[in-house]
């Protein structure tokens, strides 16, 4: 314990936080007790971010472009039967759903490896992808532990028949072949929110809840919370606090039944997305 602390402090000491004084650090919290895996977020993301529909063949080759996906697992991590239902021939405690999108890591493994710096960390904690700078070396895709980076293997927009292209969102570009892309936390919405804040005369504090990401806005069970982690009274910051997840720790020490956790945290990539454990009633 003490040793771990020491090592951590040491690593803290060694790395300097460029954005210490930035007003924003966008973060998310997803409650798996609420998430029902309906996929509203997925479709909302398609609609908001000009994601191409690639069709059956491309899906079968693994070229699909959904920035947000819902993973469905059938069992507990460690392979034992789902909580205390033994040797059943059915998944009697239902499925395990988890929405998986870019985790906007603060130690993003994708950033240092990009030869042209097309992906870098923005001052408000976003792991940005500059489409037009990307040359498509795909190193970032390899290095992403969540495999949430999506590469345009073809010019998918070309098979967008009229008038479907009229739906495209003018706030984003339409990506051509050879470019890596991924979830941006709806950066265009963030930008507009900042713009409004600027008009209202408080450029450095976007009010919590003054905007939502597309997935958050569509989620029927309100399982997704999004906001500024640096603003202590934002909903998401409170949730992180309450569930005892600290951003810059790679191993949270807390009681087992505190629900907050981050996927693959042990890789020390410092994701900005916190998940809350799925819950099942074992009495039933």
């Amino acid at each position, binding site marked *: 314990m003490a040793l771990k602390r020491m090592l951590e402090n040491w690593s803290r000491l060694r790395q300097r936080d460029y954005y210490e004084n930035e007003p924003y650090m966008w973060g998310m919290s997803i409650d798996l007790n609420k998430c029902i895996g309906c996929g509203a977020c997925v479709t909302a993301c398609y609609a908001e971010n000009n994601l191409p529909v690639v069709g059956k063949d*491309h899906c079968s*080759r*693994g*070229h*699909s472009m959904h920035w947000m*996906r819902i*993973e469905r*697992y059938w069992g507990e991590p460690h392979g034992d039967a789902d909580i205390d239902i033994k040797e059943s021939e059915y998944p009697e405690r239902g499925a395990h759903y988890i929405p*998986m999108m870019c985790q906007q890591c603060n130690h993003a*493994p994708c950033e*240092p*490896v*990009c*030869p*042209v*710096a097309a992906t*870098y960390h923005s001052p408000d904690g976003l792991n940005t992808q500059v489409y037009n*700078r*990307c*040359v*498509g*070396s*795909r*190193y970032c*895709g*390899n*290095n992403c*532990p*969540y*495999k949430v*980076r*999506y*590469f*345009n*293997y*073809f*010019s998918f927009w070309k098979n967008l028949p009229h008038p479907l292209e009229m739906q495209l969102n003018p706030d984003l570009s339409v990506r051509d*072949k*050879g*470019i*890596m892309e991924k979830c941006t936390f709806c950066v265009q919405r963030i930008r507009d929110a900042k713009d409004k804040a600027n008009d209202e005369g408080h450029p450095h504090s976007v009010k919590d809840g003054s905007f939502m990401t597309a997935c958050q806005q569509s989620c029927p069970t309100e399982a997704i919370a999004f906001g500024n982690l640096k603003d202590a009274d934002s909903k998401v910051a409170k949730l992180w606090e309450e569930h005892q997840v600290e951003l810059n720790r790679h191993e949270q020490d807390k009681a087992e039944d505190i629900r907050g956790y981050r996927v*693959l945290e042990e*890789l020390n*990539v410092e994701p900005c997305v916190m998940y809350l454990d799925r819950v099942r009633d074992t009495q039933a």
Partner: protein
Amino acid sequence: MDTHTMKDIEWAKINKDVLNSLEKPRKTFWVVIGVCALLVLCGAAAEAYQYQEGLGVALMNRPHFWQLYISNFVFWIGMSHSGTLLSAILLLTKADWRKPIYRFAEAMTLFSILTAAIFPVIHLGRVWDMYWVLPYPNQRTIWPNFRSPLLWDAAAITTYATSSALFLYIGMIPDLAICRDNAKGWRKKLYTTLSLGWMGRAREWMAFRKTYVLLACFLVPLAVSVHSIVASDFAMSIMPDWHITSFPPYFVAGALYSGCAAIITLFVMLRYIFKFEAYMTTEILDKTAKLTFAIAMVWNYLNLTEYASIWYSNDMFEKEVLLEKFFGPYALVVWVMLFCATVAPFAMAFEKFRHNMWAMFWLSLVIQLGMWLERFQIVSPPLASNHEPWTWNVVWPGAVQLTLTLASFGWFTMLFLTFCKVFPSVSMYEVKEMVFHRRKASSRSEMDDLQKIKEDMIKTEEGLA
């Protein structure tokens, strides 16, 4: 094995043989060239198609963002190390048996780099923006990302290419002079330009020697660093089974290993094509084989170290990949690789085998196959079973990738053979040195023999008396 072969070759004969190899190619030569050219054309077509449609036609996907292009890149870079090894390292260690064979080994180095350099380019999603990787002042006022191993690659490859080209060229100057003096027509012009007016005077020789050795000294660490950097493409990532500390030495060893194998292949081929039996003797083959065997052992050791370190580290992700490698869908690749690169080389432990040209020829091919597979199984399986189980899947390279792979072999062979027809593939002046030294050495031993006979005679006479 006696060291007295090749002692009584006429110097004139050396010139004649070698220069002959530059003249009137045989039919086989044209056939080979033709086939290679065809392959290259196919490759060009495939690349054009991929350029037009997008990388998807290569059937890579998520999570298989990298595949054959990268493993080919590593393979060819590895290939290039042998030349440097033979010429530079053996030069510094004063092993004279390198002399008849180092020239084509160096040529091999150069051309395999040129081949390797193609792959990072065609593997880019937006080839047309390739130059953004280079740090040059531009209107965007931004640099590339110097933290990225890919950038180091770019630097390393260019450096290595230039310096080994230089090394090859400088080493050739005296021979070019010889060619110059015996050539006519366009060859005359070419050799004249290239030989930089070499007169073979003492001052020139002194300068030449200095430069050559200096370059050698520079080249050895460079070669090591280059492949370490290539290794860091993988070692610097966080992918399970890529993120391995022992990768740099492992890659270097692998490089030398496959390189030596390649040398043996070309050794036998040239010997056959150009009738170099007199120079490329079994003795030299034997030495090369021994060297190869030694390196093979080093490589195997590092390979096992890698497995062991993963196993005992007991890291969930890496262990997963390791098991997938041995028992998963890629098992066949891995086991074949292990047979070709680990088991097969033990044949070289037997002298009879080492001395059989054709046996060695085939063995070298087997080893190279093994090392090629090794590169493939470094790149693909970790991607197939990565951190995120949801994305696991197995993808085999598509037609486009395979075509381009074959094309790369065609491209290499084409360049190499052309070189052999334009430049002396055996270093004349160094062979002469060698012959000279050996003659001196052997004549000394003849004296000793006479002494013996004398003593015997005396003994017998005493016996008679």
